[in-house]
């Protein structure tokens, strides 16, 4: 393990990779600050850029953008009560009231310290948890992989929120259907191409990710008329001091500690992600608070701000555990990273630890650097970065649209891809209006190929029998977990709806 850590350290401290961390954190912070664009869109926008880099640098850049975007979302939550992404909605509960009391500087500093601690504790646990899990999963066979893919797909659907389970499952199936378009890797037969040469290689992951997240999100802001809203005005002179008193540090330290560990554990669960972690950590902290403390929640409580901030960053780190060790993304954002890794020719999963130790370890090590960059560089520069928000929306929106389109075009140089993006965007907008979540579709699409390959191999080896699902205890356990994860929320939804209860508002689609 120490050899791997040294390899990762060697890769992560290369000047170019350090530059990628800094660039990623800055770009992520800026994109994350823009209302409507969260970590998924930010990472999707980076994919075309990373195609020109080596895999380790590319993933380091995307990881930097990821936690930069989470931090950027917190900044706009605190300063203008406009969360950049779902995982920082809770930050606004207590962050914005603090800003209204002329304590925005303190709130930003506390958010940065909490994010830093959450991210660092998360990265430390990841350092030990990931290799342990990876070494266990080295004994996996195709049947186990198939069961794991099932678990990943069902977990994402299960965590999509009450009333959304069937829709999330349908979107997963839709993603799997899109993955079958093109040439079948096992037999070479073409499927669903309808005679089009452009579809023989299937739908590109980059195209799908950019169309459903970057392009659709920007178009949705226009659809909702948000481009007409005035740019947020921030009085930087009223930020106030960024210092925390000794008493305040003592008050929030235990909160940050437990929320970090809690956030990491939630983040590890496939599909749960930073959004659920931040909501749960806030709820947990409020339940743990005394009656007097409870009254402060929602009115500028430091604990109420520290809890979601530590939890969402720790969860972002935690979501790398299933990605790096099992090849199952823990969130929508890591699903995009999984697709990017596959596009590089790297298969995330147990073998990554052995075959590409530089990628595996440098991503983990670069997380420390990313957290340091956010704390040391981004925090003092927030007043300047946030000035970028003053760029008028009618200027910013066509630019983001343009980057989304050319990002795809400059990889394929095929204008068919642009028309295909428009078609997918129209479908995605229609589905979003019908409240269908997008992340399960992308996950289904990414895992579709691997799932089919492992299912084909397992079925061929067991002579067409599905007994491979219960022959080995390990496969059986994973299958049972997948079935349980699927059935409990599904039964709850079906029974609740049949009893006439309307679905409750779902936590945004597992973003983050």
């Amino acid at each position, binding site marked *: 393990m120490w050899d791997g850590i040294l390899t990762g350290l060697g890769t992560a401290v290369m000047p170019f990779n350090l530059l990628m961390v800094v660039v990623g954190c800055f770009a992520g912070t800026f994109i994350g600050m823009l209302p409507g664009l969260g970590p998924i869109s930010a990472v999707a926008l980076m994919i075309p850029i990373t195609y020109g880099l080596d895999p380790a640098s590319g993933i380091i850049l995307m990881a930097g953008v990821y936690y930069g975007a989470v931090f950027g979302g917190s900044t706009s939550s605190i300063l203008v009560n406009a969360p950049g992404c779902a995982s920082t909605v809770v930050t606004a509960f207590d962050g914005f009231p603090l800003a209204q009391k002329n304590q925005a500087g303190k709130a930003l500093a506390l958010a940065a310290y909490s994010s830093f601690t959450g991210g660092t504790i998360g990265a430390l646990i990841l350092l030990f948890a990931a290799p342990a899990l990876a070494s266990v999963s080295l004994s996996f066979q195709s049947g186990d992989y198939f069961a794991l893919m099932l678990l990943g797909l069902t977990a994402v659907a299960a965590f999509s929120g009450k009333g959304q389970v069937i829709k999330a499952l349908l979107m997963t199936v839709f993603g799997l259907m899109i993955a079958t378009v093109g040439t079948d890797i096992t037999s070479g037969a*073409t499927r*669903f191409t309808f005679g089009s040469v452009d579809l023989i290689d299937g739908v590109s992951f980059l195209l799908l990710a950019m169309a459903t997240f970057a392009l659709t999100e920007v178009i949705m802001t226009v659809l909702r008329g948000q481009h007409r809203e005035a740019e947020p005005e921030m009085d930087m002179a009223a930020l106030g001091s960024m210092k925390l008193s000794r008493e305040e540090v003592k008050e929030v330290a235990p909160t940050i500690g437990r929320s970090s560990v809690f956030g990491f554990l939630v983040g590890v669960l496939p599909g749960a992600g930073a959004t659920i972690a931040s909501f749960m950590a806030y709820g947990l902290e409020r339940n743990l608070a005394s009656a007097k403390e409870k009254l402060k929640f929602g009115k500028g409580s430091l604990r109420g701000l520290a809890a979601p901030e530590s939890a969402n960053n720790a969860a972002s780190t935690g979501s790398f555990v299933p990605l790096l060790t099992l090849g199952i993304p823990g969130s929508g954002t890591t699903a995009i990273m999984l697709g990017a890794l596959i596009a590089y020719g790297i298969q995330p999963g147990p073998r990554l630890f052995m075959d590409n130790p530089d990628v595996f370890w440098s991503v983990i090590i670069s997380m420390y650097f990313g957290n340091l960059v956010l704390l040391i560089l981004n925090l003092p520069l927030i007043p300047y970065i946030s000035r970028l928000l003053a760029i008028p929306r009618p200027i910013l929106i066509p630019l983001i649209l343009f980057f989304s389109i050319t990002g795809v075009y400059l990889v394929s140089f095929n204008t068919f891809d642009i028309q295909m993006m428009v078609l997918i965007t129209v479908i995605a907008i229609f589905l979003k209006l019908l409240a269908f979540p997008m992340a399960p579709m992308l996950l289904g699409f990414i895992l579709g190929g691997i799932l089919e390959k492992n299912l084909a191999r397992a079925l061929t080896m067991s002579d067409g029998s599905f007994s491979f699902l219960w022959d080995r205890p390990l496969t059986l356990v994973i299958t049972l977990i997948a079935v349980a994860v699927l059935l409990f929320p599904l039964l709850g939804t079906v029974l609740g709806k049949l009893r006439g209860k309307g679905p409750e508002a779902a936590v945004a689609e597992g973003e983050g």
Partner: protein
Amino acid sequence: MPLSKDHIGGLVFLCLSVAYGYYAGEIALLPGDEFAPFNAQSLPSALAVLGGILSIALIVTADRSSAGRLQLAGYDFWLVAKLLLLVVLLGVALPWIGFLASTILFLIGGYWLLGVRSIKTLLLASVPFSVVLWFLLAQLLDIYLAPGRLFTAMLGG
């Protein structure tokens, strides 16, 4: 009974699953593959059945409350249609007038559609950006960006 979002979604996915299942049966198999435990039709057929079951489940358990109805008021579909048409036009223009000219025209068109009317802003926010980007891609990163058939035909080369 008015259709809710769940009803519409369920019906759309049911139609999709039926059409997908139909075309799954049309996938050409290699001789003997139909007897293999797993062939090119296996997963698509399973997905069509699964999609159908889930679509029916969504229709049966659809949220019938007013909150579940599709509300389209307040959305600017016309502007979105114009923006998407602009994207389609960018795709059409790229091979004909090249990267630089189509970028400038796309950005000016986008700004204009979103309400920017000042000629100075339209030009300043598009031309320098496009030229710098083109220079970065074509000159610094050495990415070949075809000048466009129209320019090639007019200027030769």
